[in-house]
C-alpha cells in the first residue's frame, strides 16, 4: 500500500518527483537519511523516536530497498510519515510502504480528546460550582452529554477568583510602596500593579482576565438564568465544545 499519492511524498513538499522503488544502495539511503536528520530539528525528534521506541520495528528490505514499518500507534504513524518525507526531500530513491499498519482507532482517539476537553471544562472553576454530573458516553454514539451548572456560573467563578487575586495583589503593592509615594501619586501604584502583571503568575492572571472578558461577552447572548442546568453536547466529530451549548429541550 502506498503511503503517499502517485506523485510521491516529495510532491507534497514542492520538490521533484520521487523516482520510485529503490535503486540506491542501502548505505546511500542511510547516508541520505542521516543528512536529512541532521539538517532538520524535526528530523532529529523523529530520529530519537526511532531510536528509543521503534528501532526494532523498522528494517530495510533487501529486495526492494523499501521501508517496512509495523506501527504500534497512530502517533507513531504520523512520525514515520514525517521521517519518510524528510528522506524524500533530499532526493532519496525509495518509496515508503507500510507492510502492516495498525488500523487507527479514530473513535477511541476522539473519545479521549472529547473527555479531556470536558474534564477541563468541568474543573476549571476552582471552589465555585461543583459539577453536577459527568460524562456519559452511552447517551449517544455521536454525542457526549455532560450536565453542567450554568456556564455563566463558571465564568463568574473564574472571574471571582481572578478578582480576589487581583485584590490581594493590590494590597501587597500598597504595602510595599513607600508611604510618601503612595500619598503623592496613585499613578505610581497603578504603574506598579501593571508592571507586576507582566510576568509570572501575574501574566497568567492577565491572560485569564482577557479570556474571561471575551467569554463573558460572547456567552452573554445565551441569556441563561443563574440556576439553569444546561446540557453541553460535545460533538464527537469535531471534538469541540465551543458553540455546542444549548438549552435543554
Amino acid at each position, binding site marked *: 500500500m502506498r503511503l503517499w499519492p502517485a506523485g510521491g511524498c516529495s510532491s507534497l513538499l514542492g520538490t521533484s518527483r520521487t523516482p520510485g522503488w529503490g535503486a540506491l544502495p542501502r548505505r546511500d539511503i542511510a547516508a541520505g537519511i542521516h543528512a536529512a536528520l541532521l539538517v532538520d530539528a524535526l528530523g532529529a525528534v523523529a530520529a530519537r523516536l526511532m531510536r528509543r521506541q521503534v528501532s526494532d520495528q523498522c528494517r530495510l528490505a533487501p529486495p526492494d530497498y523499501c521501508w517496512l514499518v509495523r506501527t504500534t500507534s497512530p502517533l507513531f504513524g504520523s512520525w514515520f510519515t514525517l521521517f519518510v518525507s524528510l528522506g524524500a526531500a533530499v532526493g532519496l530513491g525509495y518509496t515508503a510502504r507500510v507492510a502492516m499498519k495498525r488500523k487507527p482507532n479514530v473513535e477511541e482517539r476522539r473519545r479521549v480528546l472529547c473527555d479531556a476537553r470536558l474534564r477541563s471544562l468541568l474543573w476549571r472553576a476552582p471552589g465555585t460550582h461543583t459539577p453536577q454530573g459527568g460524562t456519559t458516553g452511552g447517551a449517544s454514539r455521536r454525542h457526549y452529554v455532560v450536565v453542567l451548572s450554568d456556564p455563566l456560573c463558571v465564568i463568574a467563578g473564574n472571574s471571582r477568583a481572578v478578582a480576589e487575586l487581583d485584590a490581594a495583589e493590590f494590597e501587597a503593592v500598597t504595602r510595599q510602596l513607600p508611604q510618601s509615594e503612595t500619598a503623592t*501619586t*496613585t*499613578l505610581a501604584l*497603578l504603574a506598579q500593579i501593571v508592571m507586576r502583571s507582566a510576568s509570572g503568575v501575574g501574566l497568567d492572571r492577565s491572560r485569564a482576565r*482577557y479570556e474571561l472578558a471575551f467569554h463573558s461577552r460572547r456567552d452573554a447572548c445565551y441569556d441563561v438564568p443563574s440556576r439553569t442546568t444546561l446540557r453541553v453536547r460535545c460533538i464527537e466529530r469535531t471534538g469541540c465544545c465551543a458553540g455546542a451549548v444549548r438549552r435543554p429541550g
Partner: protein
Amino acid sequence: MSEQAVAQVPSDGPVDPALVEEQAYAVTTFLNGVMVRQVIGDPRLETAEELTRLLHALVAGVAASHHVHASQV
C-alpha cells in the same frame, strides 16, 4: 481608581470634573493597551518608573489639550 489617581496629580487651577474624567479615561485606556501588549508577549516598558513617567505625561497632555479646547470654545 483612575479618577482618584489623576485627581491627585497637581494642577494649576481648580479641579475640573470633566477634565478628570477625560484623564481617567485616557489613563485606563492606555493601561489596558499596555496590559494587552504584555499578554500577547510584546512588552515595551521595562520598569514601573518608566510607565509612571508616561502616565504623568499622558495626564499632562490631556490637561493641556483640554485647556486649549476650552479656550477655543
